[in-house]
């Protein structure tokens, strides 16, 4: 017997090597061509807090981390308490622990308890306790039949830089665990073996990595940023790779400087980006206004976490929507994109640069912790995605003198000269200006320039239709949601339709300007509309109501704080409620 879907978790304290073991399992799955989806969780402490991973494997693509664990490895019983309720109910899960670290008196495990000598085998094979996590991986492979060769390859890749001795010790720990696991495997453990045929290897990527790769593909050659969880992986990726691609990377003194540097580089003709989280974006909003006024292409990533203020820095929320769409002084058009899975993070980055360059305005990408820090396996990335550049003045644009902000350009776009071009020298300003860029306090020019700047949004709304839609035509119930919630919704919609409940979902990936007509067409035939979001104040629902009637009697609003991601069961119960 074998299973089609497997969810494995491990929980311990910082220093137990839990996260690394999850990464090695993902590498192994990817080498077998399996689909994987892994989330990691840390307490807010840097070391010593609880630390865990949950990884789901399947031969078909999965879009959520799964609601229940089939197998949980426990390194730390106090931390286990927080994960106990995630075990598959009715004793359907295995709980594996070190035989030297038995469950405390009175701790009931709703699953089948298995003990293995992690510490002992680590000592005998490496001389120390540091190999416990790698022993554990060996035991898992032995007991449950995961691909050992893939884990071995992962260990080699991970530890190659640390020298032969460290590598040899880790391999020895793995083999010790593997041979223990193999000789202790039972029919029961063999029954949770994943059913699959190995295929071509897959990529392992996080949302942050996919986004950064997309930026490089789009031609981004300048990055400035300031570290903030959960966006720092983008900063680190750029610090490593931007110079390799001939670009510039600067860790700025703060977020004000980050966005300032980005605007400076882009003014100079270089595609530029910064990434931050909600608090950092708040610091940047003054210069979102400047970029909008000066019409400078710029890409700003906000990887959302719970707020306000420091909130829960390591957990997702969808509560930066208003600040992304509305945040800044004045009437300042910008574009807001919201990718909803890892592959879309790549698309969003390329689209963001394309839109910023063609329409000369700031583009915000709203990601979130669950999307940014999850790791998934993917067959490939669309590296043939087209890339656009800004329009520079042609000879015809210079007749009668270059006008940086000419009002008669198509879609409000006027050609932008790059310093060094002797034909089209101009001075730009955050003051309201005339077509040449000279300061003005004329009401009429202010009105005309506002119209020019907002015309671009109209053109973008007509041209781009970024919506992900799931479920059948003619559905009775429709779900409206955005961002990382898509994963659970996609699975819940599929399972509901399989049960005969006609449900569809509408996930906009362009949040501003909003694909209003598509949404109108989607909701028209619906009997009921479910709005699902992780924002206590229902920012998404209220935002939709700024341009659309959404009568309360037709709407089932399911909103709550972030801090825990949306589960498939949670969506399913909302669907059932809507059908009642």
């Amino acid at each position, binding site marked *: 017997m074998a299973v089609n879907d497997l969810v494995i978790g491990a929980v311990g304290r910082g220093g137990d090597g839990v996260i690394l073991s999850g990464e090695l399992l993902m590498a192994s799955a990817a080498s077998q061509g399996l689909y994987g989806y892994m989330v990691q969780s840390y307490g807010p402490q840097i070391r010593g807090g609880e630390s865990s991973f949950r990884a789901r494997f399947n031969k078909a693509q999965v879009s959520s981390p799964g609601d229940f664990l089939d197998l949980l490895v426990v390194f730390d019983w106090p931390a286990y308490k927080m994960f106990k309720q995630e075990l598959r109910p009715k004793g359907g899960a295995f709980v594996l622990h070190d035989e030297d670290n038995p469950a405390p008196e009175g701790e009931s495990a709703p699953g089948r308890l298995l003990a293995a000598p992690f510490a002992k085998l680590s000592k005998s094979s490496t001389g120390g306790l540091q190999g416990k996590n790698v022993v554990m991986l060996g035991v898992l492979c032995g007991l449950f039949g995961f691909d050992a060769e893939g884990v071995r390859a992962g260990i080699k*890749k991970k530890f190659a830089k640390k020298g032969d001795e460290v590598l040899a010790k880790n391999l020895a720990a793995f083999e010790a665990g593997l041979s223990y696991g193999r000789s202790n495997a039972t029919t029961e453990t063999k029954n949770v073996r994943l059913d699959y045929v190995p295929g071509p*290897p*897959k990529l392992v990527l996080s949302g942050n990595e996919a986004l950064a790769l997309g930026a490089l593909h789009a031609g981004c050659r300048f990055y400035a940023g300031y570290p903030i969880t959960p966006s720092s992986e983008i900063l680190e990726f750029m610090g490593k790779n931007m110079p390799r691609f*001939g670009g510039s990377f600067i860790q700025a*003194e703060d977020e004000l400087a980050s966005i*300032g540097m980005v605007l*400076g580089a882009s003014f100079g003709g270089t595609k530029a980006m910064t990434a931050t989280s909600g608090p950092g974006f708040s610091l940047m909003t003054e210069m979102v206004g400047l970029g909008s006024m*000066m019409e400078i292409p710029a890409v700003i990533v906000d990887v959302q976490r719970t707020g306000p203020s420091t909130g829960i820095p390591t957990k997702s929320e969808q509560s930066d929507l208003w600040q992304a769409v509305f945040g800044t002084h004045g009437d300042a058009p910008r574009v807001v994109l919201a990718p909803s899975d890892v592959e879309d993070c790549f698309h969003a980055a390329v689209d963001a640069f394309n839109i910023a360059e063609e329409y000369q305005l700031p583009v915000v990408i709203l990601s979130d912790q669950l999307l940014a820090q999850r790791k998934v396996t993917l067959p490939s990335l669309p590296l043939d995605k087209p890339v656009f550049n800004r329009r520079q003045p042609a000879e015809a644009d210079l007749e009668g003198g270059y006008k940086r902000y000419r009002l008669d350009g198509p879609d409000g776009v006027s050609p932008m000269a790059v310093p060094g071009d002797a034909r089209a020298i*101009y*001075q730009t300003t955050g003051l309201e200006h005339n077509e040449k860029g000279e300061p003005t306090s004329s009401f009429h020019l202010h009105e005309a320039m506002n119209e020019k700047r907002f015309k671009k949004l109209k053109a973008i709304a007509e041209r781009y239709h970024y919506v992900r839609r799931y479920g059948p035509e003619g559905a009775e119930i429709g779900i409206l949601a955005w961002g990382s919630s898509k994963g659970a919704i996609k699975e819940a919609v599929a399972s509901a339709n399989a049960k005969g409940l006609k449900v569809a979902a509408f996930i906009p990936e362009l949040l501003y300007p909003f694909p209003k007509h598509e949404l109108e067409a989607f909701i028209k035939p619906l009997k009921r509309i479910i709005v699902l979001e992780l924002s206590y104040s229902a920012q998404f629902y209220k935002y939709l109501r700024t341009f659309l009637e959404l009568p309360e009697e037709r709407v089932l609003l399911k909103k709550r704080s972030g801090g825990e991601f949306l589960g498939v069961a949670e969506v399913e119960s909302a669907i059932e409620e809507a059908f009642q």
Partner: protein
Amino acid sequence: MSDQAARKPNDYKSSLKPVWCPGCGDFGVVAAIYRALAQLQLPQEKVAVLSGIGCSSRLPGYMATYGFNGVHGRALPVATGLKASRPDLTVIVAGGDGDGVSIGAGHFIHTARRNADITYVMMDNQIYGLTKGQVAPTTPTGDKTKSTLYGNPDPPIDPCELAIAAGATFVARTFSADMKGQVEILTQAIQHKGFSVVDTISPCVTFRGDDQYDFWKPKLRPLPEGYDPSSRAGAMRFCREEGVLTTGILFRDERPGLVEHQEQIRKSAGFNPASPPKIEDLVKGFYP
């Protein structure tokens, strides 16, 4: 303009008429910048002048070079982004003391630390002029302004002292009515590879009083004969002076900065312009 025809100061001047009050020191500063650029014969299209907000920050609009008049206090980061990505351009930042050492003080320190190859002309008038007369970070202790009716309780910041301490590699002080001295310092500041700070006392006759020129002139002192600007400690002796104002190049040092570091980092990362890497190769690294 062809390279053969010599560029004159007026060739760097735009057609806009400055908004400054009659008698404002900033007229002298912008005139000195025109002359310094003409002396260096820099092509207008290869020069970018950036600023923040304040009376003096209107300056980029009066230049016939590329210009960028941004938001309050953030001219230096914008200039840093531009210079890092376009080292071929001559980047000049102009602005007031409030812009530079109050709201933008954090950036001032870090731009100095990075030794970004930018020339920073600070028009120091010891008052907030654009907002009509509030206390500035450089206003002397005890002075009454519109926001310190009972006297300024705090000591002033000396921008030169701060620049030297933070790692700027060219620090000078000059006076807006001293055209010869300004042009001499500005040409050297622009040529200097690294962060150059030119603290220019530029009187605000509207909010500091129309006797400002008479007030400053007797206080000006050139640096002593044979002064050696290579000593940081020596330069500090001419900062925070009482009753006198020493002008000239207080400090000068050479060390690699932003532009050299970016080049070095690209080299360390293995970038070769002749065969730039492919994104496909980078993606390959994400397969197990």
